[in-house]
């Protein structure tokens, strides 16, 4: 078994820092490369390795392709980075591949888009509480402002109670277990280290493609970080559930609203998988992840074919035999490290309270972050072949009801379809709005610590 060089791997790849209740991400652009390199040199010792669980704070750094170029990496080294990382997520092809149209169009992004300042560096800061984060952030800021760096924007985050996201659902449950970390996971959920960290064998038993600087393996212990700022329209989400479930004559039916929203998600608000408990949520199943669609829900009667969790990780249920299916699904996994932002609609974050809310003012959403070793085969594939694929799982014209982009530039259509399979006739919803819009994003390379010091010395 290969030994992980945890000391050289940036810690956020290995752990999500649930104990750090405050975090912020600074999006930086380099104005003076040599000053910036000095800054990186000084910063390197503070960057948190993966060998310890930090107590006071954590600091991480990642670079876009433009950022590496700006630091002065030579052409040959730059060319050794993968195509997806070099081209980014806003080319014409990528816009279509990822489904970023309408309100998600990169021309309207706040950062990382076609009309925005070039993004070079992402600095990620974590601390136990808001106060500690402010002083940590100020300290970092005072260093970069005198080091040839401009902050394009600071992306703040919020930790919501009970690990909820803004719609009121438990988030971040089904994470793959990294094989090399020797934790034992559910069968079918333990994934080769090289799927997430460069320099280790992947699910094919091969080493992932890695950037080279001369003889140095620049990729070793690094990873690719996908960042997408996803704005969530909580009002539209719950209003849709209300409009679609309200009986023609009567009062609103909160139970039905919750049921429809949960069908779209594939889990109940507390995290209970529909496959394990189709009729109600159960406290004992709130983080349950040991379930499958193929054996217990082949017809989609419990968890609809189009549900968000069934699309984003189909497990044993792809159109092939179950063993092959899970082997395929595990070649398209990502490590999620996202954090919410913006004030919650209801402080309790109970779905029952959120749907009752009358005040939806404010900008809120999810800073979606994930790590993978092959952006094309992992993040982009999930987005294109599963989330935004109108034909996923034998369906005809549906995209992910939660995060899918229903915009069809050629048809002027901005709503989608969602079907709930039932014994006999299905229930179909034909006018599902887009609840989530992309507001910014970029692909980053998060180097190992040795590679980081190399970057500061070129």
């Amino acid at each position, binding site marked *: 078994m290969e030994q992980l060089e945890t000391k050289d791997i940036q810690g956020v790849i290995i752990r999500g820092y649930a104990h750090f209740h405050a975090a912020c991400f600074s999006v930086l652009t380099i104005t003076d490369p040599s000053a910036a390199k000095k800054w990186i040199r000084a910063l390197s010792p503070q960057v948190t390795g993966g060998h310890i669980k930090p107590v006071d704070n954590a600091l991480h750094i990642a670079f876009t392709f433009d950022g590496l170029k700006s630091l002065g990496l030579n052409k040959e080294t730059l*060319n050794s980075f993968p*195509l997806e990382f*070099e*081209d980014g997520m806003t080319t*014409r*092809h990528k816009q*279509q*591949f990822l489904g970023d149209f309408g309100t998600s169009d990169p021309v309207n992004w706040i950062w990382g888009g076609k009309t925005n300042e070039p993004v070079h560096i992402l600095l990620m800061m974590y601390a136990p509480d808001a106060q500690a984060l402010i002083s940590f952030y100020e300290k970092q800021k005072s260093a970069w402002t005198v080091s040839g760096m401009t902050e394009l924007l600071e992306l703040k985050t919020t930790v919501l109670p009970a690990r909820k996201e803004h719609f009121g659902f438990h988030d971040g449950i089904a994470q793959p277990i990294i094989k090399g970390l020797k934790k034992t996971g559910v069968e079918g959920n333990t994934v080769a280290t090289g799927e997430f960290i460069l320099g280790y064998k992947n699910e*094919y038993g*091969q080493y992932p*493609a890695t950037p080279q600087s001369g003889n140095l393996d620049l990729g070793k212990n690094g990873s690719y970080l996908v960042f997408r700022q996803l704005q969530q329209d909580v009002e539209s989400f719950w209003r849709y559930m209300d409009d679609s479930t309200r009986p023609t004559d009567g009062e609103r039916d909160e139970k039905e609203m919750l049921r429809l929203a949960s069908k779209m998600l594939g889990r109940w608000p507390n995290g209970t998988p529909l496959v394990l408990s189709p009729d109600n949520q159960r406290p004992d199943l709130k983080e349950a992840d040991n379930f499958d669609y193929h054996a217990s829900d082949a*017809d989609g009667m419990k968890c609809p074919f189009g549900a968000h969790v069934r699309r984003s990780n189909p497990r044993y249920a792809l*159109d*092939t035999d179950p063993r*092959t299916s899970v*082997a*395929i699904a595990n*070649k398209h996994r990502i490590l999620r490290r996202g954090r919410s932002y913006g004030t919650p609609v209801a402080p309790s974050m109970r779905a029952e309270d959120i749907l009752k809310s009358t005040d939806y003012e404010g900008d809120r959403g999810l800073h979606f972050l994930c790590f993978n070793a092959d952006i*094309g*085969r992992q993040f*982009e*594939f999930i987005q*294109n*072949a599963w989330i935004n*694929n*109108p*034909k996923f799982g*034998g369906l*005809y*014209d549906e995209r992910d009801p939660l995060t899918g982009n229903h915009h069809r530039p050629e048809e002027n259509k901005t709503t989608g379809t969602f079907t709930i*399979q039932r*014994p*006999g*006739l*299905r229930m*179909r919803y*034909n006018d599902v709005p887009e609840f989530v819009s992309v507001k910014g994003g970029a692909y980053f390379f998060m180097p190992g610590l040795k590679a980081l010091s190399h970057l500061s010395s070129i």
Partner: protein
Amino acid sequence: MTSHGALSVVVNIKPRQEQLLIDTFKQMEKVEVDTNHLVPFRLITTIHFARFVVLQKDEDAKGHAIPARLVFTTNYDLPLENHLQQLVQIAGEGLWQIFSSCEYFPASSYNPESLYGYLQANNQQTETFYVGRGNRSVDQVEKENELRTAIETFIDQEEHSLKGEKPGVVRNKIIEFVSKRPDLAWATTPDPAPSMGWMTSFYGKMIGVILLTLLFSPLILLLVIVWMLIMLVHELREADEPDPVTKEHARELIARETGVVQTQFSALGNIKPGKFRLLTMLFLLRMTNFLAPYLFSKGKLSGIPTVHFARWLIINDGKQMLFLSNFDGNSEGYLRDFIHIAAKQLTLMFCHTVGYPKTRLMVFGGAKDAKGFMDWARNKQIVTNIWYSANKDVTVSNIFHNSKVRDGLYKEMNEAEACKWLQLF
């Protein structure tokens, strides 16, 4: 029942006419492939898929020059004569203009008969032809999809009146709806089953071959063993020639992948030198061609559920392999399916081309080397200048599903069966 054919016109391009053709295709694409005035594909109702591919000047495995060629292919509804007639009738002058840039094309002014003759004479043999969408005509695929869509809309509109009704009642209301719609009149009768003659010939051939194989099995076994040993010697001797793919090439290819539902793939590779490789490849391709209709009749090519049509050709006097396919999803997923689902079967057919990852006994190794396989595939992949699909929005899975919807309109059903049928929506 309709059967399908693969038309593959492969001809040398006249010297210095290559760019002219590429520009013509660019123009056709700019106007819109479906309705361009040269070859208005949409009007040619026998075509499921079609493409034009310009094969650039090249060298074979031994370094001998190969001139630029033009490839024009269609997946059509049989019979061929009818298809060729339609091509000439509707797109005759356009095809005349295009093929005028090719060698041995009549120098006269437009003449439908000589065009027909030219297409027929230059139609190359397909070594393996795989049909994933079953025996359905272009029109049937389209209509059965419309049928399902119409019923879905009906169900949405009648949501309240159908609520609480028993499955049998709901089904009857759907059947009644279909029978009342003049545009769905065709759906009141089932698609004709294959004729006795067809069935006899289809299964007769299979039984014949099985009997022959059994009869000669000791001899065949011996031959296979000897053949495999010779192959192993070849495999050990052949040098590994990895073919990394450049970013420019990859970019050009993926930028052309703009379909939401379907995509195409064209690949050209040199066959490894020597008669032995060529013979082995021909034998395997032809055997697969014979077996495919029996083995892969349910819409899955060696387990891959997304391929509408695929074909393998050996062109240029046995020097090169041309592989063309039409499938659902994106090419990344498609190529990954090769590795994940059908590595051995496809390695058996592809391993005779230069640059393919090292194999042992033609099935071991090969596509197991995922990186080597992806590099090989992208390296061999070439730009498809024009690509047309008649039913762009239906997947193989949709096509089979739609037929089940239609078939369910005719039979007697009990409540449980009716319930199951309703779940198709």
